[in-house]
C-alpha cells in the first residue's frame, strides 16, 4: 500500500549514492603488506582478513574493527580498544588453559586490530551440510556424525569449564582443523579437531545462566542450519557436555529453563 501523504515521507537523511558497492578500504596496518591480504568476512563491526604474520610463509587472521563515524570519537576509541583487548585476553586465556582457539600473534588495541593464528580446514557447518545433504533425520547409527557432535559438545564444555562464554556459538564459528594424522587429506569430511573461533562477543563468566544461554543459542542455531540432526545433537550435547566439568549438569538443568522461556523475557510495555 502506498501513501498519498508524500510530503510526510522524510527522505533518507544522508542518503548515499544508490548502488555504490560497499568495498571498504583495508586497515592502515595492511597498507605496508608486501603480500596480498584477502577480506574473508565482513561482520557488523569487524572485518576478518587473511594475511601473513612477519614472514610470507606464515598465514594469519587479522581482525580489524574500523572506526565508526557515527560514534563519538572518544567513545569509539574506548570501545574499540576494550573489545580488541577483551577478545585477545580471552583467546590467550583459552589457549593457556588448553582450549583450542586461535593463538594470539599481535595486538594493537589503538589501531583496532588483532592478529591471530590462521586456522586451516573448513567450518563445522560446511562439513555437516555436506554430510547431511542426502538422507533424512539422523540418529545414533551415524557414527561419523555422532563423533563430530561429541567433539563439538566437548569443545563447548571445555570453553565453559575455563570460565569463558562465547556469546555467538554457531556451527560457522567452529572449525574442523586437520590433525597431524589427517593432515592434507582432502574431503576428510567430519574428521579434525574442533577449534572455536570469533570471540568478538565472548565474555569471561562462570554463571550457569550465561552458560545455559550460550548452549541455547547454539542449539537454536543448530536447529535452523542442520534440522536433520537437531534431535540427535540435543541428545549428544546433553550426554557429552554433562561430563565436561563439575558444574555442567547444573547448566543443563538451567538450559531446560531457558528453553521453556526462550532467551527473552516478556516485557512490560
Amino acid at each position, binding site marked *: 500500500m502506498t501513501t498519498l501523504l508524500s510530503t510526510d515521507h522524510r527522505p533518507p537523511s544522508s542518503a548515499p549514492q544508490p548502488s555504490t558497492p560497499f568495498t571498504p578500504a583495508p586497515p592502515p596496518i595492511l597498507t*605496508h603488506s608486501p603480500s596480498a591480504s584477502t577480506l574473508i568476512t565482513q561482520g557488523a563491526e569487524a572485518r576478518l582478513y587473511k594475511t601473513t604474520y612477519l614472514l610470507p610463509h606464515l598465514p594469519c587472521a587479522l581482525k580489524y574493527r574500523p572506526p565508526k563515524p557515527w560514534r563519538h570519537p572518544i567513545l569509539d576509541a574506548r570501545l574499540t580498544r576494550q573489545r580488541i583487548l577483551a577478545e585477545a585476553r580471552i583467546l590467550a586465556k583459552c589457549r593457556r588453559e*588448553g582450549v583450542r582457539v586461535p*593463538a594470539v600473534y*599481535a*595486538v594493537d588495541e589503538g589501531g583496532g586490530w588483532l592478529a591471530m593464528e590462521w586456522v586451516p580446514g573448513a567450518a563445522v557447518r560446511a562439513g555437516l551440510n555436506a554430510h547431511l545433504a542426502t538422507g533424512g533425520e539422523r540418529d545414533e547409527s551415524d557414527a561419523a556424525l555422532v563423533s563430530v557432535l561429541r567433539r563439538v559438545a566437548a569443545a563447548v564444555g571445555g570453553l565453559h569449564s575455563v570460565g569463558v562464554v562465547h556469546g555467538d556459538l554457531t556451527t560457522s564459528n567452529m572449525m574442523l582443523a586437520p590433525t597431524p594424522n589427517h593432515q592434507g587429506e582432502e574431503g576428510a569430511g567430519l574428521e579434525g579437531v574442533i577449534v572455536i573461533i570469533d570471540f568478538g562477543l565472548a565474555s569471561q563468566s562462570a554463571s550457569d545462566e550465561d552458560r545455559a544461554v550460550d548452549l541455547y543459542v547454539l542449539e537454536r542455531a543448530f536447529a535452523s542450519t542442520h534440522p536433520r540432526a537437531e534431535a540427535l545433537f540435543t541428545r549428544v550435547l546433553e550426554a557429552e557436555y554433562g561430563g565436561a566439568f563439575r558444574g555442567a549438569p547444573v547448566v543443563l538443568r538451567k538450559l531446560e529453563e531457558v528453553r521453556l522461556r526462550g532467551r527473552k523475557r516478556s516485557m512490560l510495555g
Partner: protein
Amino acid sequence: MAAEPPSTAPAACLETIQLEHVPPTYSVNVAVFRDVENAEFLQQQLLSRNTEFEYAFIDATSIISRLQLLSAVYKAITVHSGGNMKTPNIHSEIVWSLSPNNNISEAYRRYGITPTSQHIIVVKILLSPSSFSSPTPTNPQTPSPSTIQSHLLTHVRGRPCPFSDAVLSSFTDWPKVRKYYKLNGVGWLERMKDDEALRRRESEMLVLGSMALRGL
C-alpha cells in the same frame, strides 16, 4: 631485503629481513654468535651508551624460535613508528618486547646480554633502505648491512652462526623460558612430553600470546 634466510651462505653472518606489514623504511638485520667470550665488554658498551653499539644484544638462552624474536622486533617497530616508545631506543624496545610484563629493567636482565652470556642474538634495525646499496657520498657513515657485519665481526668475539630455528633451539634454556613465560603451571603442556615438536610449537604459541598481551 630477501625474506628467505641465507643460511646457505655461511660467509654472511648477518641476515636482513623485511617484515610483513611494516613500513619499507625499516629493515631488520639479525646475527647470531655462539660461545661469545666478551659478553661483559658488549654489555658495558650498552651501559655506557656507546652510540657505535646501538644494537639489541639478546641472550639466546631465553629465545625459543625465530618467530618469537621477530615478534618482539615487530612490536618494537610498531611502537617506534607510532611514536610511543617507553625505552631509550628501538633496540632496547626489542628487548623489552620479549617480556610478558611491564618491568623494563627486569626485561633487560632476563632477555638482554649479561656478562655471563654465552650465546647471543644481535638485532640492528636500519631506517631508510635506500642507503643500503650505496652509502651516499655526503654521509658515508650511514650504516649498511655490510658495515654492520664487519663491525660485529670486529667486536663480537664469538662464532657466527645462522639465525635458524635449529640453531636457536640448541641454545634454549627451557627451565628459564618456562619460568619467564609462566609455563610451569600449564598441565596439558607438561603432559605432552612424548611429542617434543608439538610441545615446542604449543609453547611458542603461548609465548607469543604472552608477549602480545604484555601489560594489557
